[in-house]
């Protein structure tokens, strides 16, 4: 689609150990916003990213027994799946928002999730539903 690369914003928990280094060469663009815990990610950030033109948003947190803050990941599990449903209801393709829970140093799962997500988004095209025109 003339050189369009899907832009995926990944809200990564600092302790989950994922970074751009795990992804290698790719034909999609993944940019990280690191947070202390996945539980810090509230729906407003996901919406903000989508409004600013992200084609996909991924939240990467830790497996519940591994949360550095003991129940932060659990709280994220309460907020975010509901958001997935709301976004679907709003007309946004559900493949654009994903949540992945990683065990310590489970880089393969992270890489596979991002790749699969990017493949699906490439088929969907750029984010047109929520993107706001930036007033510069």
């Amino acid at each position, binding site marked *: 689609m003339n050189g369009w690369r899907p*832009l995926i*914003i990944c809200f990564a928990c600092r302790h989950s*150990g994922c*970074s*751009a*280094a795990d992804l290698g*060469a790719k034909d999609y*663009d993944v*940019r*990280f*916003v690191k*947070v*202390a*815990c996945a*539980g*810090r*990610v*509230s729906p*407003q*950030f996901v919406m*903000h*990213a989508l409004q*600013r*033109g*992200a084609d996909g948003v991924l939240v990467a947190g830790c497996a*519940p*027994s*591994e*949360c*550095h*803050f*003991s*129940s*932060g990941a659990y*709280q*994220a599990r309460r*907020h975010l799946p509901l958001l997935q449903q709301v976004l679907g209801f709003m007309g946004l393709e559900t493949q654009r928002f994903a949540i992945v829970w990683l065990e310590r*140093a489970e*880089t*393969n799962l992270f890489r596979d999730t991002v790749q699969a997500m990017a493949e699906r988004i490439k088929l969907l095209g750029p984010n047109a539903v929520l993107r706001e025109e*930036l007033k*510069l």
Partner: protein
Amino acid sequence: MEVVLCRCPGAQENPLDEGRLLELLSKNKRVSKAVVIEHLCSAEGVKRLTESIDGGKDAGLVVAACAADPLYRLLKPHLETLGIPRQAFEVVPIRDWALWAHPGERAMNAANDAIRMATARVKASKDIGQWNAGSAYINKLGCDKCKRCVEECPVKACVLDEDGYPIVKQELCQRCGMCVGSCPKQVISLPDLRIEEISAGLRVLKGDGSEEPTIVAFCCEPLTFPALTAKVAQGLTLPNNLRIVKVSCMGAVNMALVSDALSSGVDSVLFFGCKDGPCRLRQGDELAARRLDNLRETLDRMMIDMSRVRYIGWPEAVSDGVAVNFARCNGCLTCQAVCPFGAVEAAEKKVAGKNRKVAERKELTCRSCGVCVASCPSGAAQPIGSSDRQLMDEIDAACWDGFQPVAGEVVVLCNCMGALNDKIDFSHLESNLREEGIDRVLLSDRLCAPEGWVKVREALGAELPHTMVVGACAEEFFGPRMRKYAREAGLSEVELGFTEASASEIFSCAARMKRAIQVGQESGCELAVCLAEQVAALKLMGPNPFRE
């Protein structure tokens, strides 16, 4: 088992004498083969490793190299092909713990000791067999149902079955290790914190017969182990015969291990843990302090000087806390319900002349995880240093396809001795950056060597920037080294931010760095003074009475 020494292709000042180290290792009965492999952290290095390891019945592998955690993650997926069971694999950071912490002649002993401890642990792990348990495991045969594990588990993952024996609920277990430290019969272990292994590692330390006291320091994984590593990378030298043991938390150290160490001839056992309660694994420091007090009282009655065993607290600088805007807080206390640490308490504050019920944060308990912030319906709670507004800015920076102009910025790019030239078009990247207002873009061949930084310093000339973004490889591998060389080249006043070499990453990194500078640095721990005092006290006390 096999021991692999990594030979780093980077120019190290006074590297360890490989030949001598191999000679010392050849005397170690547990080691079947000791080899040197170049550049383990590269694809070719890993290939050389897989080719040279035999595996087989007695398979075990100890890798002595620079940074433990990143190398561990890199090599872990290959363990199966190598035929090495997960628990028979260890990485020893001899760069940090020997070369940097003990300059000069002492580095050789420190390296040899660290490797000996690791080989003892791997041997013990083979003796007790491999586990597939995912969480804490209790050996019922030795348990006498004292229920201390049930009481001390911070998340109530340990419960009693019908016979009164404790069992661990796998889905709740956090692998913190409090139960390991609490058991008076030492029958509980975690998959990566097995008592028999740690004990075997401690028992090889007998001191080298010199006057320098042998000290074992337990460091906790979340705080003091990385903090001590960082301090060593910044130049702290450790007392001669100080050896580090990494555990998940101070609360996970069983007192029987201290007893083993002392009876082996170790002169002193130190606990480096958090101070004043900010234990990220909850109450670990409290439990450790209580158990230590008990042990010290026993030592006193045994005519062993109590101050051989000490708890040294490390003030934590990381957690900045959460600020609450009382005008916005509506007192719903949702934050209290979701806080994992119980850091919220209801309070009465006067707002606009009226008394209102609001939610306050207990400074010492709050870990700045941000869960309360995400749950707050009115946006009254904001983490200090990473508020919602700041996070939105970061998202903006990440999403922007145009670049934000930053004035006076310097960017240093590294092309890894030319290896990255076919992956990244450096001249294109450079012109992109210049177009957006970065006036100085420097390109270096090798930022993981001191010469690279000397050249950078020369290129910067008289005007040093306040901040510098370094686009290079993984920060975990070479971050401490790059910082050290940068400091030595005269750039200690410059704030460095590390990122992968892509333009958008560089810009979001620069934006983040600006914010980070506003937050304070430096934990201010007088660790060096503390250690020096302990060594002096030990010298006065004399050697451990158990040593012949």
